[in-house]
């Protein structure tokens, strides 16, 4: 029996477009753009100025705050300018432009180390210095996750990859299983745990086999097969499936004694500690029916997404929608100029954007949103609350617990785009809760 959680729905995954394709390396790109915002936390200040020479792995922006993660150059070359530029969040953010000299000279600071000989606190600072953030999409600084206030009992690698289309983690498990397990072992050391878990959806049996045949695999690494169901990779749902524990409303995973790290992030941890190389590269899936050759790429950060798409053969025809991330939780883009950042797991181009909002169709109370909500909420009631702007009602139906997985909108036969309504009322509820707490 595969582990799972209550609710959810099997979303058609389209992973066959790319899951058997080996990860390719991109050709040289002339200019790399590094937004200063690639994480959740304190904003960064640039450490370089136009005209400066930078090397591969050199830190170019940092903050003295704990909850932040520095940014490094992924190429060697010259800083040309620092100015606001497109960001996949849809806003313009300050970015450092580096002209690639294509020599890829590695910075002095990048030195290989043996993680087994390093002290725990050095391991943690190595993770911080490498600028590692959650690469599944959220971008929460990993060293913060690895410094829980109280001792945790579980560290779980999230290799569910439940978003449709994306195969970046899947390929990482197949191609770099050793690094991934080393990353997990480093996390286990930092958290002072003897055992670690890896949650993988059952639709990736080859990945499970690859992990199990790695020389790094041993009896302390537990691979947990997960039921193929969206959103299996959502943090709280994954913890429930693997440990049986429930993260209470408003609590952090660490409060339930668990730390969850994305699989690709574990690979980045291993590279940061063993090779001394900061997070400057990631796996990225280019997919969707508008892409000529859907592919997986090793991408150096800072590459414009248009360059990545060109190397996947470009578009067959003009897509209606381009999405950064998965189709369920990703962000729709109005152009393809935005650069790849640490959290860019995929870019999707869809020829047809299906209708998910119909103002005229009434809710028929089918209850599908209630039946499938992974948080056991009543999404259609939350939508009603939002339409009426009734904050108390939204509070009563636990609006703030919504993890915004999008299943309610995906499944709604009346195309009510329920999630968007919940997003509209959520800040109001949070405000009221804060006021109530005072």
């Amino acid at each position, binding site marked *: 029996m595969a582990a799972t959680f209550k609710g959810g729905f099997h979303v058609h995954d389209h992973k066959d477009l790319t899951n058997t394709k080996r990860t390719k390396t991109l050709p040289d790109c002339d200019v790399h753009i590094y937004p200063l915002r690639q994480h959740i936390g304190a904003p960064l200040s640039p450490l370089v100025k136009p005209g400066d020479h930078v090397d591969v792995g050199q830190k170019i922006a940092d903050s003295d705050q704990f909850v932040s993660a520095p940014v490094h150059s992924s190429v060697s070359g010259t800083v040309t300018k620092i100015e606001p530029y497109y960001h996949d969040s849809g806003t313009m953010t300050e970015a450092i432009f580096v002209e690639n000299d294509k020599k890829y000279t590695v910075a002095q600071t990048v030195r290989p180390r043996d993680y087994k000989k390093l002290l725990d606190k050095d391991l943690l600072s190595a993770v911080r210095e490498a600028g590692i953030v959650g690469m599944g999409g959220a971008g929460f600084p990993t060293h913060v996750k690895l410094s829980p206030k109280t001792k945790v009992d579980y560290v779980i690698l999230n290799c569910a990859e439940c978003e449709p289309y994306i195969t970046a983690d899947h390929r990482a498990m197949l191609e770099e299983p050793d690094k991934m397990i080393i990353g997990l072992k480093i996390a286990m050391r930092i958290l002072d745990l003897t055992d670690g878990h890896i949650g993988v959806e059952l639709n990736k049996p080859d990945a499970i086999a690859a992990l199990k045949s790695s020389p790094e695999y041993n009896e302390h690494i537990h691979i947990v097969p997960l039921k193929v169901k969206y959103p299996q990779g959502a943090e709280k749902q994954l913890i429930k499936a693997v440990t049986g524990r429930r993260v209470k409303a408003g609590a952090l995973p660490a409060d339930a004694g668990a730390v969850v790290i994305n699989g690709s992030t574990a690979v980045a941890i291993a590279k940061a500690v063993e090779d001394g190389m900061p997070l400057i590269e990631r796996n990225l899936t280019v997919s969707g029916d508008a892409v000529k050759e859907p592919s997986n790429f090793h991408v150096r950060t800072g590459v414009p997404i248009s360059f990545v798409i060109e190397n996947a053969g470009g578009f067959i025809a003009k897509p209606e929608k381009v999405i950064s991330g998965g*189709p369920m939780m990703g962000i729709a883009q*109005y152009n*393809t100029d935005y650069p790849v950042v640490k959290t860019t797991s995929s870019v999707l181009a869809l020829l047809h954007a299906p209708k998910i909002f119909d103002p005229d169709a009434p809710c*028929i109370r089918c209850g599908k949103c209630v039946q499938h909500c992974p948080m056991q909420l009543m999404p259609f009631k939350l939508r009603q609350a939002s339409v009426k702007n009734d904050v108390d009602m939204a509070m009563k139906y636990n609006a703030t617990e919504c993890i915004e997985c999008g299943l309610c909108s*995906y499944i709604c*036969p009346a*195309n009510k785009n329920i999630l968007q309504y919940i997003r509209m009322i959520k800040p109001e509820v949070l405000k009221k809760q804060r006021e109530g707490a005072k």
Partner: protein
Amino acid sequence: MENHYIVSSSPHIHTGVTTRRIMLDVIIALLPAVIVGGFLFGYYATIVIGASVASAVIAEWAFEKITKRPNTAGDLSAVVTGLLLALNMPPQIPIWMVCVGSGFAIVIAKQLFGGLGKNFVNPALAARCFMLIAWTGAMTTFREPLVDAVASATPLAIMKDGAAGTLPSLLQCFVGVKAGTIGEVSAIAILIGFAYLLVRRVITPTIPVIYVLSFAVLTFFFGKQAMDVNYLLYQILTGGLLLGAVFMATDYTTTPTTPLGAVIFAAGCGILTFLIRRFGGYPEGVSFSILLMNVAAPLIERYTIPKSFGNKGGAASK
């Protein structure tokens, strides 16, 4: 800025299953019952079905035309209502009564409360009960299938009041060769529709299974012929129980959306059906049971709000 793509809030994909598609699935699921009914009761039954569907659609269109609302006949919900009502009719019902009933279902039970998704009782059932009261004679006169104009009591009436007539065999009941309404007679046709609805995920088995199960348990232990499996099977296979449990009690709008609510709702239907059939004046009780539970649905829903993932107390605990 030569490239512009559509920007919207996530998610960016959809199942493709719309209200219209669901209604179409219900229509497809009802087809076996329609075909068997038409075969057993002849061309007149087919006319009843056609008239009921046509008047439902026309009523919907006309009401929206008069009240200057957007035309929703395209969502096919009026077709479903018309079909369900027709399947609840005795085969020789006068056509004009069917038309009035169908119009009642759409205008009074559905549109006056705000249309699709807003009605508080199942429109087809409300219309049926209205007709039962208005034209009791016509609505309770049944005839034998496959032969012309031989009046006959329904098996339930025979079992209840000892009405004249011989009980058909259980096999006949299962296939549908017995007196009854156009759509209720054939258990097998209804079960095929049930299977289709389950496969298409239009409904979950909860309500039909719990409804029939709770009714069966009560009937088996406390029925007129308690501990009699044969009697129990007759009670399940005859009358509107299966049609009601599969197609009426599962109506989205008038049933609780919460998982626990659905269980309570279905059990309530089963208990009420048993009480009416066992102690009430009518041999049949399915329509009234479901209607009564429809009315209770909002209340049930309110007290069965699921406990959210991270909130043990749940929203309803205050």
